[in-house]
């Protein structure tokens, strides 16, 4: 057995670490001869060393065929496109809406160009301020929600489906077909507004900057609350979803559950650290204030459960379609909820 302590000299200055380096072929010839001399005197260790050398050779043989296989095209193409998962953490922080693109130096948006073709810092600041003041709703593109093809079976994995809806699985936009490659990204702050700025560069040309801003409302939502016939109903809008909660609850418990739902849903955005050291601030979950209404404002009887059902947090997407991703298994609440279509 080779000695365990690699620092103990075992023969003529040779240490255990020399024997392993010999096995791995990392010794210079002179030192290798010393090891061989030692092994000649210790046949049992020599047998062990031969075994280890053989294992090395066998392992190399076993793994070599992989290297000789043809490289899949997707790996080659991975070298020529933006990172696949780069935006996932941002998108999990909130639904991000691409607000605007600012062309610098190549004349894509001529209105923002000076005569020499490059905008001044003041122009950039004014432009960003304009974005900051803009109502994101007016810019919200519902097509971006529909753009996602559902590759998850909603019947078997509704939470994944909801995550997709929230996260949108957006990638850093690929502008390579127009000759632009992403060369930089950073967080830009204007007052309380924060933007992620992507810079694309055209070969031999100028830059294009793309600003992205979360739609996340930093103010706590207003929870619409109704209590009737022993049933509580609470609904609110937060992030990209509308929530509706119903159950046989006291008003106090309904509010507590509603805030638990909000806290739980916000955890998906905990990982807001972007690759590339960009951090997008997440709206803190603040206790929501209820607005208690007399009766049902909507008058939608379909929304009124006639029997007691367990708490079933509901969510609705931007098209007003309900999804029921948060319900516990084995509880059928669909019959009490509006149709998804």
């Amino acid at each position: 057995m080779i000695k365990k302590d690699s620092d103990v000299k075992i023969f003529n200055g040779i240490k255990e670490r020399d024997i392993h380096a010999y096995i791995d072929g990392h010794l210079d010839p002179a030192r290798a001869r010393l090891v061989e001399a030692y092994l000649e005197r210790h046949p049992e260790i020599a047998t062990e060393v031969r075994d280890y050398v053989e294992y090395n050779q066998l392992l190399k043989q076993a793994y070599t065929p992989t290297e000789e296989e043809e490289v899949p095209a997707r790996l080659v193409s991975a070298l020529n496109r933006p990172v696949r998962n780069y935006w996932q953490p941002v998108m999990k922080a909130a639904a991000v809406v691409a607000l605007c693109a600012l062309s610098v130096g190549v004349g894509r948006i001529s209105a923002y160009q000076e005569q020499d073709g490059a905008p001044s810092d003041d122009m950039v600041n004014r432009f960003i301020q304009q974005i900051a003041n803009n109502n994101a709703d007016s810019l919200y593109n519902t097509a971006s929600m529909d753009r996602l093809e559902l590759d998850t079976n909603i019947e078997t994995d509704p939470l994944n489906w909801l995550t997709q809806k929230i996260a949108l699985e957006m990638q850093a936009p690929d502008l390579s077909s127009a000759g632009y490659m992403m060369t930089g990204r950073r967080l830009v702050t204007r007052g309380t507004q924060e933007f992620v700025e992507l810079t694309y560069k055209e070969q031999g040309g100028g830059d294009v900057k793309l600003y992205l801003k979360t739609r996340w409302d930093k103010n706590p939502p207003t929870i619409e609350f109704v209590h009737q016939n022993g049933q509580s109903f609470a609904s609110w809008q937060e992030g990209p979803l509308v929530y509706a909660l119903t159950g046989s609850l006291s008003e106090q418990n309904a509010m507590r559950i509603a805030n638990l739902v909000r806290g739980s849903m916000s955890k998906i955005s905990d990982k807001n650290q972007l690759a590339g050291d960009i951090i997008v601030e997440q709206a803190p979950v603040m206790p929501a204030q209820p607005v208690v209404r007399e009766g049902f404002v909507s008058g939608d009887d379909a929304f009124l459960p006639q029997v007691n059902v367990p708490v079933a947090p509901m969510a609705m997407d931007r098209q007003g379609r309900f999804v029921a991703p948060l319900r516990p298994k084995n509880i059928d609440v669909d019959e009490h909820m509006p149709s998804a279509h």
Partner: protein
Amino acid sequence: MIFGKRDREDIHWMIAQEIPALRRYAFVLMRKEEKRDDLVQDTLERAINKSHTWRREGSIKSWLYRIQYSVFINKYCKSPVKEVSADGISDDLTPMVSENPSQELTVECKRVLSAIEKLKPRHREALLLVAVEGATYDQAASVMNIPIGTVRSRLVRAREDLRTEMNQDVKVSGLRIEK
């Protein structure tokens, strides 16, 4: 460090040359064949994104291995739930050799692949990095982000355990190996 277009093209070319080695190293790290190229793709994307951080110190292969090992540990080793196949046998215990039926491996190769699956993962990774990838101890330490002494101790333990497994295998199967 600011890279020009030519520098970027050079780095992309150098990275592309290492794809076969990265696939082999992914084969070393991952059991599921279909996941291996995912690991390589993640590695390549990260490498391209981080290419400006490469200081041209050491080989680009070591740098790529370091990225790949980091991606492997952080992304693919996090699930505490072991995947269990229909027959109830954990995939973690399935010898890698079964993933490549097309390979024409010798009986001895299959034996060593089967035996190495029984080693502790970190020990196995150290051994394969050195034995298969030809990494020096300091390169392995850099890739695995551990001290060189830890690499050596893992290597020694891996070899001893592998030998025990191989000898055990011989006793069980009644094979006699002609040296």
